[in-house]
């Protein structure tokens, strides 16, 4: 008994020391970071770009001398648009490759799949895509927009500048549109919009026959009140949707469409002349007039060796996340997860719209919200820019989450603190 325990203890110690040794060895020459984006399968269309951005940022940082005097090395893996594979690849990056942090994921499903892995192995993930909120993890930083950094300002713009009174919330049938529309509906009703003036419509992934829905929108819009469409339609389904809008003669002056998933990259496959005036809300557009943005675009075109490549919002989010991590590591003097988690809160880095973004205690960041109108050349003309907005992880407009806040600073260190009950944990008011 005693002997066994001793043996076990010795083995454990040996195991610990080897890992420590390996860690020390790896830390000697380079610092590794993981890039977890799908390079094949349906999401490759969007995620490949982010992989390229990460490689560009790493190369650039190394030119400046790396981090803590060491070179950075990007470890790229391909989770192939397969959600369980994301978790497997994340585990491989953290335990085998010993990366200091991971940059990756696009869909919420992939993020939910890797979340337990990052919490279990205590590593850091930077997630660069706009998402539905209602989540806060000690090990994840959300550098994309939460609903209050994209959806709600867009609706406010339409209500104020265009006098919209009637709303069509159209989306693809999955978690991001469902949650965003739930928040928007609650928000609109809190602003006094009657339920009869809100129409919610869902379509399957890759929906291509929009005739009925577009004519439904027309019908809904002929009630004598100014109508707008708030679109959370995802990916490929957008092209036939906009084509049908254009063909049925719905002009932006009559029924404007504001989209949250349509950026420069999506418009690249589309003749945008019939769409001029339709809107999108993001935290960044390629057309932003700022020196830092001009430099970024120039570098991106040089790096990809393609003069036609466009930049978009998730790229900016990746840029902010990467620079925030670099700054936090330099402040902490180590890549140790716990030290970085402490030092990163409050870190401010420049964003591409000419201001700065700060990492908040709820692991979201501050950034301005831009509303842009589609132009004939596939770019956006910015018609409104707000002051920086703090990402709100738990929406104030959903009964389940309105009492929850997240603060990962000590001593609270809680992702879902209920201000009504004064306790940490659990949903529900």
């Amino acid at each position, binding site marked *: 008994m005693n002997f066994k325990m001793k043996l076990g203890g010795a083995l454990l110690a040996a195991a610990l020391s080897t890992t420590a040794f390996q860690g020390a060895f790896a830390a000697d020459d380079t610092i590794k970071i993981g890039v977890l984006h799908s390079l094949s399968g349906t999401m490759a269309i969007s995620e490949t770009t982010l992989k390229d951005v990460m490689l560009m940022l790493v190369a650039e940082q190394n030119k400046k001398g790396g981090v803590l005097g060491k070179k950075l090395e990007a470890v790229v893996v391909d989770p192939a648009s397969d959600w369980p594979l994301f978790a497997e690849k994340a585990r491989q990056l953290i335990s085998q490759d010993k990366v200091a942090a991971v940059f990756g994921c696009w869909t919420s499903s992939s993020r939910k799949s890797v979340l337990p892995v990052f919490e279990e192995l205590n590593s850091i993930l930077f997630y660069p895509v706009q998402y539905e909120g209602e989540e806060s993890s000690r090990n994840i930083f959300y550098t994309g927009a939460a609903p209050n950094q994209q959806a709600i300002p867009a609706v406010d713009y339409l209500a104020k500048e265009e006098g919209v009174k009637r709303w069509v919330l159209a989306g693809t049938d999955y978690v991001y549109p469902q949650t965003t529309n739930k928040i928007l509906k609650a928000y609109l009703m809190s602003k006094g919009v009657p339920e009869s003036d809100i129409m919610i419509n869902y379509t*399957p992934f890759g929906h*291509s026959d929009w*005739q009925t829905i577009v004519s439904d929108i027309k019908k809904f819009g*002929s009630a*004598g*009140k100014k109508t707008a469409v708030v679109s959370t339609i995802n990916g490929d389904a957008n092209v036939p949707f906009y084509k049908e809008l254009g063909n049925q003669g719905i002009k932006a002056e009559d029924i404007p469409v504001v989209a949250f998933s349509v950026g420069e990259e999506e418009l690249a496959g589309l003749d945008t002349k019939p769409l001029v005036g339709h809107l999108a809300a993001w935290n960044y557009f390629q057309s932003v007039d700022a020196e830092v943005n001009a430099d970024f675009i120039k570098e991106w075109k040089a790096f990809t060796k393609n003069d036609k490549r466009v930049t978009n919002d998730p790229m900016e989010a990746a840029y902010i996340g990467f620079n925030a991590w670099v700054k936090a590591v330099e402040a902490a003097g180590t890549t140790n997860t716990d030290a970085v988690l402490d030092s990163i809160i409050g870190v401010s880095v420049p964003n591409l719209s000419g201001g700065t973004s700060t990492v908040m205690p709820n692991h979201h960041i501050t950034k301005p919200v831009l509303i842009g109108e589609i132009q004939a050349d596939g770019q956006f003309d910015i018609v409104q820019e707000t002051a920086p907005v703090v990402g709100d992880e738990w929406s104030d407009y959903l009964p389940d989450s309105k009492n929850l806040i997240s603060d990962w600073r000590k001593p609270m260190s809680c992702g879902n603190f209920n201000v009504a009950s004064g306790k940490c944990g659990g949903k529900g008011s």
Partner: protein
Amino acid sequence: MTLKILFRTLLACFILVFAAPSFAQQGDPKPLIDALAKADFGEAEKLLGQIAATGDTRVVPALDAFSNGDLYFRKSDNAVFIGKTAGSGFDLIDPLTGASAGQAAKNAVTKIKINNNLRRVIRSAMGGLTLLSPDRTVRLSAADAVLRSPSPENLELVEAALAKEADKEVKARMEEARAVSVLSSDRSVDEKRGAIQTIKNLGGRNALGILSGVSGSIDPSLKPDLDAAISAIESEQQLWDMVQNVWYGLSLGSVLLLAAIGLAITFGVMGIINMAHGEMVMLGAYSTFVVQQVIRESAPGLFDWSLAIALPIAFLVTGAVGFVIERGVIRFLYGRPLETLLATWGASLILQQTIRSIFGPTNQEVGNPSWMSGSFPVGGMTITWNRMWIILFSLTIFVALLVVMKKSAYGLNMRAVTQNRRMASSMGIKTPWVDALTFALGSGIAGIAGVALSQIDNVSPNLGQSYIIDSFMVVVFGGVGNLWGTLVGALSLGVLNKFLEPSVGAVLGKILVLVLIILFIQKRPRGLFALKGRAVEA
């Protein structure tokens, strides 16, 4: 004397100096346009109101350019110009006289920002200003513009134009525009009652929108008239909705038919479970893209012909690929359906990845020729040109295929081979060649379908995948081996889907259609039009 002259000159100067600003307010739009350079959206809206109030038709080109985002101001002196891109800079055009004002580098001028709200204001203002244009089509579109954005300010302009108008159609449109403007003005109750009648006769969604829009603010004595007009339009509209649903159903059905018709040959007639069918459609769409790229670069004038040029090319390209697949893979696997399934699926993955490597993973832009864009009204519904052409196109292909199969010698050979291979072989038909040509024909037809589908869907390497399931569904539902079954199957699935969609939504509608097909196949395993006779048992 000299004193008098001096005094007069002074007086004239005095008048000029003090009167000039007020004159500008009334008549000269130039300072107003120049003021747009530094105006925010709110100020621009006010300025536009004042520009319209000058009644000066010379401002129309400037307003048009503003609405299209072609209005710029020069950074050095804030003067406003219409800008046309020329090389790396802009050709500047004076906004009022239309005279050339030299050139400017790209960073020497700034675009004047515009949003939807301003575009609406401009539309209404231009409508008012061009009502008296000598050009009939301009007057017609001016009346349309007033009709679509009613404002009481335009009322007098419309009435002035009406008094002078001779053309019957334009006059009718102006009457409607007048009625719309009357409703939002403070005219008498009687005049408004007449206006309600005019709008009611106009009918359609637009009229409904206008009438419901004023229902909150209208004089109570007019309320019954208004409600009656609204419900009359609504009940008429309901009827049109039914017609529209049928049309949408036929349109969806024609897309299904296009996707499935090639498969009706390779799977239906030849019995090959062809998983690479979707990729043939995709190759057809990419052929269209390549043709359009070449045309864009070397002969932009031919763009409207791009689809006609792409059709034979797509047919030949996909037919050739089909021929190679049949000769290279499938012919070794006849009679082994499971192996064929895996082999063709492998072929489909290879084709997808090849296209991805050549053209990249992103969507490619395939443009609509002008005759495929836009829509026209038929009664209370709108028909889009691209959908109408696709319906006609799919029916044409169907008829052509039917003629080839039933009337040509090659069709006869093909049917002979599929019905009794050994007998056909004994009669001297080269059965392997017939197989290869039939598979090539089926693939080629799929390629032609790809040309049409490139007009309504994304052109990406994944294009084929989204159609393969629907195609098999249609062929199996219609009855394997029967072209008529494919036609009836596709159209009835389309109409069924479109009748379910408004009531249960697109997601549930699709699920319900699948459930119904499963139940139907349980009852009739051979589909709608089952082949009978000995061929079936063979």
